[in-house]
């Protein structure tokens, strides 16, 4: 039984069957990659997992509880954090504030009317945030306006924000898309480190095979809205069906 | 039945004014993303183009008529317009009589220039500024334009009557077999409706069938990409601004004979035109036109005795009530595009 169990999920947009009979099981503490050609339904699947879309059929269970019908913030509170394709951070706020918000969210829940307290007096939260910034090697940038960060730093900040909530499942949507090679390698190293050092499961949607094979220990291949195969990386590499459906095309 | 037809007709007429103003506004606001609080002022300037032309045509020389006296008992100064002196009394009188239709021609270059000057001189610096700044600067501009007009023309409304031939009303009911006096409608209001239809059709055709229009529509959808293609979209947007100003101005010129222009008529329409554009949906020209006509018709029906006795005060709030209902049932108005002015 995996921490995330997707059973028979189907989703239709008008005449387009985006997903059908998707079954997926993500094992605890694994790095599970979901790959597939463009239009295979990767993003749709991801959106079904985080509550942005509601599938027409099937079930999505996280740690034994259904996520279907819950709003994104509720699913996050269950322990799923999401990293976006283009980093989604609070651009108008400082790096430090960016880091404080998820920690407040973890401590106080989805809403709390803490209008009379002062941020500066929340020592515990600030300490946690500072610690996470240290770990992300961003402590020196804490007073910077986060919109002014480089793309790689924004990515680090976003991942740090997600990690600060100690999620059990981290979902990454093409985390290296549009990055320079050096930034990509840095991100790979960071994710490797995270999966080794932390008690955390990672599910990653990725296009870049270099990233996938550097990180994943389990891979699901999606094609035309259906899982083609789910296996270990070395088997995927040799699988002719996958080559035909995906690698052949994109190579 | 006849009462319903009458209110539909009236609604179409009201709606054509709303649609015209909203059309111009949505070109600027819904597509360039500029919150233009000076749009009402453009409408007002249009109307005052007609007033100005009327004044120009009535420029007169004075001669003293000893046989009559003015209110203080002094000999009366009689004014004769130069136009009448030059073209003869009859032809001159006809020209003066037709000053509003002539003002359409007079207003087009003026409004194009006003729009051009506004965009190049002011608005272009505000494309990347927050909406709040756009509101403040265009509101300031609207006040200035309004006060300038007030300084020269006063606060009192000024009549710009339609030509003699187009005054009065038609008994439309008789034409389709109703009793006399059942459906009476003013000729100029029918003219306004036809005029609005032509202008709206013209703008749509322009955007639909010309290459210029295609580029502009593409630019509305994705400004950056079109810019990357090496097309100077900024210049085209300037021209669009001019066109939007001209549409608003012409709406104003033709509106004058319906209700005499005054310097604050723009502000009276401002809020309403924003409501129309938003109800139509941001970034949608057909939406703005549709919403204009829809709100016009609903407003007409809400003002019937039947409606006001059923729900007291409905005529006061109908527009806003409908706006709320539409925005709550259709998140982006009638035909709005996703992501336009939603944050």
């Amino acid at each position, binding site marked *: 039984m995996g921490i995330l169990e997707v059973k028979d999920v189907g989703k239709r947009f008008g005449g387009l069957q985006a997903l059908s009979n998707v079954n997926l099981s993500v094992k605890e503490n694994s790095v599970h990659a979901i790959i597939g050609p463009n239009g295979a339904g990767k993003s749709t699947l991801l959106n079904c997992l*985080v509550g942005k879309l509601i599938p027409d059929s099937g079930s999505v269970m996280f740690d034994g509880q259904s996520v279907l019908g819950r*709003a994104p*913030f509720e699913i996050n509170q269950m322990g799923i*954090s*999401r990293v*976006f394709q283009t980093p*989604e*951070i*609070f*651009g*108008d*706020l*400082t790096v430090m*504030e960016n880091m404080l*918000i998820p920690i*407040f*969210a973890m401590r*106080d829940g*989805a*809403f*709390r*009317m803490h*209008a*009379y307290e002062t*941020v*500066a007096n929340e020592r515990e939260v600030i300490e946690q945030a500072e610690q996470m910034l240290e770990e992300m090697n961003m402590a020196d940038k804490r*007073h910077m*306006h986060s919109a002014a960060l480089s793309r790689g730093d924004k990515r680090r900040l976003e991942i740090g*924000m997600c990690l600060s*909530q100690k999620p059990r499942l981290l979902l990454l949507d093409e985390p290296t898309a549009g990055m320079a090679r050096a930034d990509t390698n840095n991100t790979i190293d960071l994710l490797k480190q995270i999966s080794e050092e932390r008690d955390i499961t990672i599910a990653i949607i990725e296009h870049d095979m270099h990233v996938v094979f550097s990180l994943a220990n389990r891979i699901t291949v999606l094609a035309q809205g259906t899982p083609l195969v789910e296996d270990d990386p070395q088997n995927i590499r040799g699988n002719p069906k996958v080559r035909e459906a995906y690698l052949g095309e994109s190579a | 039945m006849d009462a319903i037809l009458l209110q539909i007709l009236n609604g179409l007429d009201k709606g054509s004014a709303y649609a015209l103003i909203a059309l111009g506004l949505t070109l600027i606001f819904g597509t360039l993303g500029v919150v233009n609080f000076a749009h009402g002022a453009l409408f007002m300037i249009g109307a005052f183009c007609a007033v100005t032309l009327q004044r120009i045509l009535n420029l007169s020389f004075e001669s003293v008529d000893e046989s009559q006296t003015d209110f203080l008992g002094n000999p009366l100064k009689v004014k004769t317009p130069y136009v009448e002196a030059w073209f003869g009394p009859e032809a001159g009188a006809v020209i003066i009589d037709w000053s509003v239709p002539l003002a359409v021609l007079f207003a087009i270059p003026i409004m194009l220039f006003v729009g051009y000057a506004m965009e190049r001189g002011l608005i272009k*610096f505000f494309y990347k*500024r927050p*909406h*709040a*700044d756009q*509101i*403040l*600067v265009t*509101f*300031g501009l*609207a*006040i*200035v334009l*309004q*006060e300038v007009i007030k*300084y020269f023309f006063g606060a009192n409304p000024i009549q710009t009557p339609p030509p003699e031939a187009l005054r009065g009303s038609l008994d439309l009911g008789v034409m389709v077999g109703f009793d006399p006096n059942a459906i009476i409608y003013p000729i100029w209001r029918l003219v306004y409706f036809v005029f609005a239809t032509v202008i709206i059709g013209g703008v749509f055709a322009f955007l639909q069938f010309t290459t210029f229009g295609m580029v502009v529509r593409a630019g509305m959808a994705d400004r950056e990409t079109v810019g990357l293609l090496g097309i100077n979209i900024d210049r085209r947007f300037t021209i669009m601004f001019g066109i939007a100003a001209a549409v608003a101005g012409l709406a104003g010129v033709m509106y004058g004979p319906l209700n005499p222009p005054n310097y604050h008529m723009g502000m009276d329409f401002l*809020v309403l035109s924003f*409501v129309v554009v*938003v109800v139509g949906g*941001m970034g949608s020209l057909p939406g703005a036109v549709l919403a204009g006509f829809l709100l016009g018709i609903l407003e007409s029906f809400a003002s019937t005795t039947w409606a006001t006795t059923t729900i*007291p*005060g409905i005529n006061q709030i109908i527009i*806003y*009530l409908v*706006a*709320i209902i539409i*925005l*709550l049932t259709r998140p982006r108005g009638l035909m709005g595009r996703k992501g336009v*002015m939603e*944050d």
Partner: protein
Amino acid sequence: MLGLDKKDTTLLIIVALLTLLAPFLLNPFPSDSAMAQFNAGYPDLMQRFVIFGIFAVGFNILFGLTGYLSFGHAAFLGIGSYSAVWMFKLFSYNVIPAIALSVIMAGLFSLLIGFISLRRSGIYFSILTLAFAQMSFALAYSVLSNPKFNLTNGETGLQVYADDPQMFHRDGLPDLPHLFGLSMRSTYTLDMGAWSFDFNAGYYLCAVIMMIVFYLAIRIFRSPFGMMLRAVKSNQQRMNYTGLNSRPYTLAAFVISGMYAGLAGGLMAAMDPLAGAERMQWTASGEVVLMTILGGTGTLIGPVLGAGFIKYFENIFSKINDSVLHGWFAFLPDGMEDFVVAVLHPFVGKGWHLTLGILFMLVVIFLPGGLVEGGTRLRNWFRGKRSGADDKPSGKTEPAE
């Protein structure tokens, strides 16, 4: 002090000094000099500065922090005023219960309107709030003032009549709004040579309340809640995926700012027990938007400055007429005098709108951050003069610590 850091404490102290000393600061010219026209230190205008300051500070909690632009906040001000006058009519002229009720009623209405309007964002939200406010105005102006059910007294404005019950009114209490017997109109005039200064009870009540709510606004700005509101403005998507529900945050901000507006409305009625429907019209809602932007959106002191700026023009410039102008320039030779008066004539008196419009444009063109930015630039310029180049680039947002 009071849980504020040094910078905020300084700001609060400055605001406190400015409001408490306003009777002196606003009357800098001797009362019989030609410049006395520019004196703003009379009770009514001082009260207005402070009341509209409260209104704008509250509006800024919504608009400045969350970015949600409400175009209907005047409705809450109006509801506050009507509630207060009804308190006067039914119970007593004491201002405390009246103000309390206005805050509560405005809170309730803003809860309802905010709950509905916040289902949409951006311009759609603005138009929803505008629609609600315009409906309130239209109803208050006519429908709700019909003789059978007169809730608002329409065009004239709701006021206290001699035959109103006023259950707790006693002989010996002022026939005007009062604070436990101290009439809001009580004024002590201090004559100092050619100068005269007015100390008005109502003004000081407003000033004290303003300091309290300004302090609360600072607390909100510096609180985790305030940070969450700024997060709403910055990126709602990230907020939702961080486990935060943005809706109650925005609704709370909406209700708080609605209550500020209600408080302002209640105070207006307490200073002058008449509630006119026009204070709910869209132009009134637009005015507070302009005040906030003009002063500096998202800054603490900006909205107060913006409010003062606009009210000053409305009340001072509109009263400068040609004979005042002639009085000023009487020292010039006749032709010159007439010329100068003719040049200035369009900008003052009935032309005060024109001056205001021009200033709006100048401020937004040259000071993108509003009047506060003007202040910052001025300060930097002075510092630059004095201490050379050790100035940091003006930080846009203060660090959270």
